[in-house]
């Protein structure tokens, strides 16, 4: 693996740490801008277009505004927990990029031999921060948001990991770079079911779209960050998009072949960025379209729909690996057919239903 740029471990470490921080902060700005611009056409309006051409400086204006706001700590808050929560939420978004290869072998530690395990472990960390925010604010709305995020994490971590095991089986490695190298056929074509499960579970994991239960603005005011303002709120805002970026990057790397793509060797980074933006566009699309699920439906969907499907996906992929070793290209058709049939059949079996509890009042 190249230790770019100076062939020195420490220099490599320092340079890439700075690159990752700049990359994440910059891309978060791009994402905020992109999402708000994309919402415009979806909702038959323009989106931000005042601050500069195409509203490109809107995130800067937002950031300046939010930084000038007073930082309020409620009297009922647990001060240290309240203070630490935004940091605990934001840091994992940065940490995930340690193992993401921006180009063939270029990254902080893209060939870490437990790369995928590292991603799974780190991405679950931010939930602690969210719960800290919910608990530490001393507000009931925040507390409900915090409890919801735990329920959500417990039910969606399992299908997420199971869908990733399929990737590991086919690639034969946990190292992210190896997985990218193994994708002669991008994995979202090879195992569409696994990709769909991953995408939905990842959306729930980063709390966006129809799964934004923990901030649920129509019910819980702002959920876990109701009591946050100023810089700390900005941290949550950054973290939300940071996690969206991280999950888009993980999806682009594990299922869309990361830096691989036609053309010159050097435009690998551009391919990577393009794929990240595409995944993020899918997330925006779903967020604008769907209403929110209820908390019991959310957990029910995770356990009764995604979990069995991800198990079946794992069986299919494992069977194919045992049968053929290297999965031939025509297995695409088998997998695609299996995905369509399974989703159709399971959606017939699965009902949201229920929800009411008898109470005596």
């Amino acid at each position, binding site marked *: 693996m190249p230790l770019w740029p100076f062939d020195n471990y420490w220099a490599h470490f320092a340079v890439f740490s700075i690159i990752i921080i700049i990359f994440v902060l910059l891309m978060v700005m791009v994402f905020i801008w992109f999402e708000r611009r994309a919402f415009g056409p979806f909702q038959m309006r323009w989106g931000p277009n005042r601050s500069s051409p195409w509203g490109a400086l809107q995130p800067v204006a937002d950031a300046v505004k939010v930084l000038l706001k007073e930082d309020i700590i409620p009297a009922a808050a647990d001060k240290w927990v309240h203070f630490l929560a935004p940091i605990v939420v934001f840091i994992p978004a940065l940490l995930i990029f340690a193992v993401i290869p921006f180009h063939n072998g270029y990254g902080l530690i893209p060939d870490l031999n437990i790369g995928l395990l590292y991603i799974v472990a780190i991405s679950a960390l931010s939930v602690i921060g969210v719960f800290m925010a919910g608990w530490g604010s001393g507000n009931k709305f925040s507390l409900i948001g915090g409890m919801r995020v735990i329920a959500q994490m417990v039910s969606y971590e399992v299908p997420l990991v199971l869908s990733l095991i399929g990737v590991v089986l086919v690639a034969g490695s946990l190292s992210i770079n190896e997985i990218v190298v193994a994708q002669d056929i991008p994995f979202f074509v090879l195992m569409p079911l696994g990709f769909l499960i991953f995408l939905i579970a990842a959306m729930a994991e980063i709390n966006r779209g129809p799964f934004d239960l923990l901030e649920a*603005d129509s019910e819980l005011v702002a959920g876990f960050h109701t009591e946050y303002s100023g810089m700390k709120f900005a941290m949550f805002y950054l973290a939300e998009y940071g996690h969206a970026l991280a999950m888009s990057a993980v999806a682009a790397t594990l299922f869309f072949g990361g830096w691989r793509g036609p053309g010159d060797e050097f435009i690998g980074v551009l391919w990577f960025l393009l794929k990240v933006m595409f995944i993020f566009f899918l997330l925006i699309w779903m967020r604008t379209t769907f209403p929110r*699920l209820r908390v019991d439906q959310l957990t029910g969907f995770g356990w009764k729909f995604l979990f069995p499907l991800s198990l079946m996906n794992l069986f299919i992929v494992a069977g194919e690996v045992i049968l053929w070793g290297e999965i031939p290209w025509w297995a695409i058709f088998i997998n695609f057919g299996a995905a369509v049939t399974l989703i159709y059949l399971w959606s017939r079996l699965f009902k949201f239903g229920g929800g*009411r509890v008898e*109470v005596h*009042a």
Partner: protein
Amino acid sequence: MTMDVLRTEPFVLNMGPQHPSTHGVFRMRIVLDGEVVVDFEPIFGYLHRGIEKIAETRTYTQIIPLTDRLLYLSSMACNHAYVRAVEKVAGVQVPERGEYIRVIMDELMRISSHLMAVGFFLNDLGSSVYTPLLYMYREREKILDLFEMVCGQRLTYNYMRIGGVSGDVPDEFMPLLKRFVAEMPHYIDEYEQLLAQNEILLARTKGVGVLPRDLAVNSSASGPVLRASGVKWDIRKADPYAVYDRFAFDVPVGQNGDNYDRYRVRIMEMHQSLRILEQAMKQFPGGEASAKVPLLLRPPVGEAYGHVETPQGEMGYYIVSDNSIAPYRMHIRPPALINLTALRDMVLGWKVADVIATFGSIDIAMGEVDR
């Protein structure tokens, strides 16, 4: 660890009066066991302005703008209910053209109000970036343009007058109305594409917040809330006013009285309103729009109750006249407040999210609930 160490207890959650989804300053005192609602108490009165009392100190014409401030998303219908009551007590006959204009305004108002009701309902369900609501604003704008054309206002119209309307419709009004009526079904189909078969929407609304038929009748609910529970009751049919007996239209009803039915009834009522508008345009007569009524009206001693079917339900005004220029007493029958009284029974046992959704499906305006 034993269970008495892990003791749980219900807690009280105060939603409102300042809350994003309380449609104003409504307050809900909810007792929660985890996410489940075990007790519920609606508290209102934060927006009380004493409109009924103020009305006793105003002349009959001056009260019309007060009625705008009740159901502010359907002010035309509020105007209409009030002037009907006064016309009854004063024995004023409205010219035919005036009645047709009132019907057209009422039905446009119904479409506009139902658009907002459905839009905000979906918002409460958590279309957290407002997409369906913004689609519905597009058509509401067109209706508001029409209203602006006839009375110069976009929210508080103050258009109806005792004996007619404040001014006849301008010449450009009818062609634009015709175009709107022609375009609107296409837009409603667009909402249907986005919403009708949406699995999440169905899961969140079907069977949720059920208002049983007998409870709906007993709590004297009216409007779409009552009709969604399967009761075919519409003032336009039950006690035809203005010229409603001249139009063919259906009264859509639901079966289960859940949030989904309330949403469906509103969508179907928009289609029926368009039907009425089409017929009203065809039959639109000439002549005067208003009767000659003295500005300082002194109705004879007596009392009368006038009601119309507003988009929210039956709105009525009970007016007692003592032959002075101001009513001796004016009482308002507020449809949204009365519909709201059954809310507790609709939400008990459901989750916090359903409380907001059910509350949104009733379609209230705090201006009218608190008066």
